[in-house]
């Protein structure tokens, strides 16, 4: 019966050994337990939309929004908007992406500068829009350069509208179509205090006036927007992740250059596409063919 005390006994018996093993395992689990008790309930993603809206910047923002929808840890989205708008087609894509996101998650917009034209289009379906008195919203309208007329020089084309894209009346109708879609969408998304035709004036409103007309909801900065988004997602404890727009590659300059800070730099026409439909606020540097007419000395032109 008497056995030599084995290794187990020499270490203090099985109880001690199990206690030590338990201690080690427990210690290994401490970080997880700590994290579970003190860690965030979820993440509020801040998606940037800065600068003019081009195909590139819109694609980046839409990728961020898709990530927010599919990542389970992201519970709410804040759009940090400071953009004068841009391409009409890209603005519509952004509108649909934000609308889709807002159907799954709380989406709150913080206008950190300008949410005009196309960038307001994407802000409209948000649950709440924060502005500051000096930030601007509005410019609900569409613009296009008048298509050139006449036969193309030094080119052989297969049709009269190959270079001009459309006749003037067709371009006018197309702009009107886009205006109806834009104004109609804003009216549908927002509870406005102004009529659709008044909205069609495409004014730019200050943040304070924007609240009055119903284009914005509350005075507040980015922090207030994040708090609001977390509250709407029922997050008492959350972390914020900023999803910055990537710098577009130089190869993307074929159509539009997204790196330019000013609209003139971005939308300087290089003749690749003669008629761009823009939801863009600001002055465009376009040849003013309507106001100035060349007159030769013999009076014919």
């Amino acid at each position, binding site marked *: 019966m008497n056995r030599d005390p084995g290794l187990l006994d020499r270490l203090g018996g099985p109880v001690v050994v199990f206690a030590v093993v338990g201690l080690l395992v427990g210690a290994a689990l401490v970080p997880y337990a700590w994290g579970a008790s003190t860690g965030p309930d979820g993440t509020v993603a801040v998606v940037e939309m800065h600068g003019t809206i081009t195909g590139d910047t819109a694609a980046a923002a839409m990728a961020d929004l898709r990530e927010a929808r599919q990542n389970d840890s992201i519970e709410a989205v804040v759009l940090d908007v400071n953009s004068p708008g841009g391409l009409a087609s890209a603005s519509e894509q952004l509108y649909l992406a934000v*609308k889709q996101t807002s159907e799954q998650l709380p989406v709150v917009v913080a206008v950190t500068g300008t949410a005009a034209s196309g960038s307001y289009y994407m802000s409209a379906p948000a649950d709440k829009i924060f502005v500051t008195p000096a930030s601007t919203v509005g410019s609900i309208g569409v613009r296009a350069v008048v298509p050139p007329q006449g036969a193309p020089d030094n080119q052989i084309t297969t049709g009269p509208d190959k270079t001009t894209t459309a006749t003037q*009346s067709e371009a006018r*109708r197309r702009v009107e179509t886009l205006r109806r879609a834009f104004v109609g969408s804003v009216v*549908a*998304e927002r509870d406005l205090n102004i009529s659709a035709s008044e909205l069609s004036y495409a004014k730019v409103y200050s943040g304070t006036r924007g609240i009055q007309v119903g284009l914005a909801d509350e005075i507040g900065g980015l922090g207030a927007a994040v708090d609001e988004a977390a509250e709407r997602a029922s997050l008492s404890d959350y972390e914020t992740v900023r999803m910055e727009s990537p710098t577009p590659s130089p190869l993307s300059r074929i159509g539009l250059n997204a790196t330019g800070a000013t609209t003139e730099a971005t939308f300087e026409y290089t003749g690749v596409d003669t008629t761009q439909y823009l939801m863009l606020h600001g002055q465009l540097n376009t040849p003013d063919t309507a106001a100035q007419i060349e007159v030769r*000395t013999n009076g014919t*032109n």
Partner: protein
Amino acid sequence: MARTDLLKGVGVFAVVVVVIVAATVATGTLLSDSSTDASVDAPAYDDQLLPTAVDDGGSVGTPEGDATKTVVIDKSHGNALSESEMQPLVDALVRDGHNVRFYTGGSGGTGGFSGGISSGSSGLNATLRSADAFVVANPASTYTAGEINGIDAFAEAGGRVLMLADPVNPSSGGQSISIPNPLGGTTGSTVTPGQPTNLAANFGVSFGAGYLFDMTDNANNFQRIYAQPSGDSSLTEGVDRLVFDDATPLATSSDSTAVVESQDAQLSSTRRGSTYTVAAKTGNVVTVGDTNFLEPASATVADNDVFLTNLADFLVSGDKEPGAPEAAGPSTGTGSGSGGFGGPPQPGTTPTVPGNDTSFPTGNGTSP
């Protein structure tokens, strides 16, 4: 013995692996959201988005006139309306056998500074003497007192005058006006379209500042407004609805009658909605606050073609006394116009008259 234990252990291991994998698949299937990216509806995109095009089926007709008339279109004041832009009107006149001439001046346009008042009036007046109608559109420079007196006498004598002007762009108005250089060969110069303000004022009409727009009822753009006939006038016979693009309102004196008006438009400079006169008639003078309806793309929209035909008819249906305006008419005694005929006339620079009218007077430089 050891072999059975080993087999037992492997069996347990396989069962455990299968259970774990199966449980994972089952849990994943249960928990995963099958529709993470559902499509969205844009409510406004379902509405009637495409606008209906304005009827563009008309064609500019031919005026009905018996005699062959001469219509002079002024190009001597930097008129910012090209011949191609008024092609429908010219075509209508030519089809009916009338003479259309473009008066390009050239009689001392650069000598205006030395003479105080431009000496070009004699050339214009000489041309008007052989004309039956005179068209002024978007002049960049003002008309001299002598020219105004001549045009006034021309209209008094039964000559028909048509004045057209677009709104002046406030950012470019009042500056960068340059007159075509008669010495410069074929090089072009840029002119800013203006309004014949002092000429129109002579006939009791004033062109407005700013453009008319209509946000709700328009021809697919807020600047393309609808206008209707105002009262009964031969100018609007057969006209139901006109489309003007970038039109300016007219203020008229009691002598004038409104011919075309836009009822619900607003004026850009005041943002007031009202009934604005777009075309008015003062005796033999018709004033229209728009030129775009003359252009080929707009001339056949809505009833613009009918209006244009009526305008052409108006131009050639006058009964002008021959010889007016007289060389040094009695109406030049208004002080400021006294020096108006100082320059040497150069009628050779004006287009040749296909001669059914009075011949060119070559010695009308009678300075008072």
